């Protein structure tokens, strides 16, 4: 095979492999993605059993920890609608009322159960002054 033709074959093979890999990447991402939702969206449209990534602010005075799972409410960043979350597992250090959190949850009746180790809170270097005070 002459070198020019060989180069073309190589290029075609590499491009085919790249297209295959990219297709797999796109497919698996859409299949594995958790829908990111605010509490107000979650309250109205969450389907039981499906996982969602909930982001919002921990409601002041809502955190209860009495032996069982940690219970708290999360509200929209700029709104009042909130949902109740039950979470079992280690809580990140900066977790506190009034702080922003992101947690993967599934609907169970009227509450949302957090997946273990999915709760994350804003890195303390990124708190704004009102969060601090």
């Amino acid at each position, binding site marked *: 095979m002459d070198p020019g033709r060989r180069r073309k074959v190589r290029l075609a093979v590499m491009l085919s492999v790249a297209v295959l*890999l990219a297709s797999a*990447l796109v497919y*698996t*991402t*859409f299949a*594995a*993605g*958790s*829908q*990111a*939702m605010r509490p107000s969206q979650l309250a109205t449209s969450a389907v039981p059993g499906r996982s969602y*990534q909930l*982001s919002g602010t921990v409601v002041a005075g809502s955190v209860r*920890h*009495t*032996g069982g799972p940690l219970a708290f409410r999360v509200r929209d960043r700029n709104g009042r609608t909130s949902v109740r979350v039950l979470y*079992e*597992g*280690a*809580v*990140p*250090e*900066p977790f*506190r009322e009034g702080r*922003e959190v*992101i947690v*993967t949850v599934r609907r169970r009746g009227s509450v949302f159960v957090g997946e*273990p*180790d*999915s709760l*994350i*809170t*804003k*890195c*303390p*270097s*990124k*708190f*704004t*002054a009102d*969060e*601090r*005070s």
Partner: protein
Amino acid sequence: MTSLGPALLSAALVTEVYGLGASLYGALRGRPRWTHSGRRAVYATAGLLTLAFAILEAAFLRSDFGVRMVAEHSSTTTPPFYRAAAPWSAQEGSLLLWVWLLSLWSSLVLFLTRRRLRELAGYAQAVLLGFAAFFTVLLIFLAKPFVLQHPAPMEGLGLNPLLRHPSMMIHPPMLYSGYTLFTVPFAFAVAALAARKLDAEWIRSTRRFALTAWLCLGFGVLLGARWSYAELGWGGYWGWDPVENASLMPWLTGTAFLHSIQVQEKRGALKVWNVSLVLATGVLAVLGTFLVRSGILDSIHAFGASTLGKPFLAFIAVISLGSAALVLSRLDQLRSQPRIDSLVSRETVFLLNNLVLVGLCFVIFWGTFFPLISEAVTGTKASVGPPWFDRYTTPLGLVLVLLSGVGPALAWGRTTASRLPRIFAAPLGAAALVLVALVAVGGIARKPLALVMFCSAAFAATSVAQEYWLGTRARRALTGEPAAVALLSLVRRNRRRYGGYLVHVGMVVLLVGVAASSSFQHVRDARLRPGQSARVGSYDVRYVRATSARSSEKVTLGAVLEVTQHGRHVATLRPSRGYYPSLDQAGLGRIGRFFKGDSTSELGMRAGLGRDIWTAIQPDLSSLEPYIARADRSFPDANPQLEGFLVTTVVARYLRDGPPAEFRLIVSPLVGWIWFGGSIVAGGALMCLWPRPRAVRIRRAARSTPGLAQPLGRPRPGEGETAGAANTIVARLADSQPSTGRGSGFSQGSSL
């Protein structure tokens, strides 16, 4: 003094705009005087920004609460060490740090190249000053660090307790140094394209800056991981958060660039690829900064309520489109270079390594920006978590480890098939040995990917060791030096090459640590009362008793844990939690504020190279709440002495009752290898950066000038005649071999 800050920033902006104009005019019209003037503007900018940063630092150290940023991020009780680090805990201060570091690195590179790259200097200065001007505009109009307030409060809010960690002093400056240093090769790549000077000179002149950027960014990322592991109470070191990913992406493309530029230097190939890589790295470095500032993605590291998203987006659009346009307009000049001759050659491995690194970067980019992509495609925002990232990054990481062992063993140009068994016999033997040993141990075969990683690591480490051994043996044969001396001489004269190999070893060690700690980690969350035990892995952890401590800064509640294995004492650990009093007396109560403010974990950890036993505690304060509430109701106006007494009483009650506590218990094998591997990587990179001995520098310079090599290749006074002659012979051998396929590669492409 602080009122000078805004004036200094304005003066810096004027200087930057002037310098940008002068540099461009000098470059376009061929007027060196204007180019020199532009360079002096860079120096002046560095001076002005240094003063501005020093004033901000002084305000923090003096606790000048008249400056709003100081009042919001420091206090008189914040230790001086952390007051010095507090400026970059805020949006405004971190931006000032960014542009200040950029101005310093810009000045340094322009000073070092002042007698070279004359045709590129003007364009490069314009790019660097353009970056600086953008950030200075943000500081003047959108994120002002010197906003004053009257009257000044008596006390500040203080630095968040979670940021009071030694890493706070190093981690952000390291990351920012990495980001800003990557703008240096970016600027010179743009300059080379603009000036149509597309040989390897700009690469040679900025290579050290690219390597330093890579080192700083990598070290910064690793420090962040260590900080997270040791401080944040969740026991992990990487969460695939968008901002974490954003710091990893330019590091990956930077790694690819540092490999592929060698192909351009040795073979004159991959010009389009190299210039695209360095431009992408520069854009990704700004993208990382953008993700932190914009809040466009839900990230734990993003500033809330930021107004900087749109300006950053516009800036990224300009530099991305400008870069792409420049590359496309110079394609003809970039393409006219030799192709890769053989698939079995070092440059092929470098190309594969580049494809894997860029593929890895693309996967991370796709996963990070998937919320925006999915919203654009389906109308709903969706995101992917760590399992998705692991699915792709793990196999790609495995391929990288294998390539890091294959690359050093192959020659530039071509390696003949008949040589391959001899080259790879030892590495393959080591991999097989590890496979047999691990299967014999048992339990590890359940994790096939980890098993493949350990075998690949053995292959790569043996391959590198073989390179060191062959090089030392060749030098001994030529010079008669003892083995240790020959090894040292070999490394000293080829720091870039053998430093690079050491980096490979470090990465292998690091990735073994990642594979082992993520595959064989045991985690247990347990609620225990004093006297109760929990099992994690093969260890039993018993909660012996509760502990407490009180200082002016915080109240600490903790536990004594006894760790045993098969009945044998292993360690006594003391995890605790520090509660920092909140200033919110009205909302939380006079006593409640001592227990409901910010709190931080102090881990109880037994760390070792074999495994870490990691424990954290979350005391259950619910049994104390009635007492705290009663104290708040009974003593709403308690003075500090009474406050102290009441807090002590509550703490004493905690100790007496011994209430339950939540514990997170983790046993992680080989997690220490991550930090150890990182140190080896840093050592290898520093070895590469260290200047070569003068004799080698002269000889290499001479070799690039035909006719001068032999006279300048003579030994210097004081060097042995034999050694000098041997070096010259080996250097000639090295130069004559690139396409012969002889040897394992140890003697090719580099003098000994």
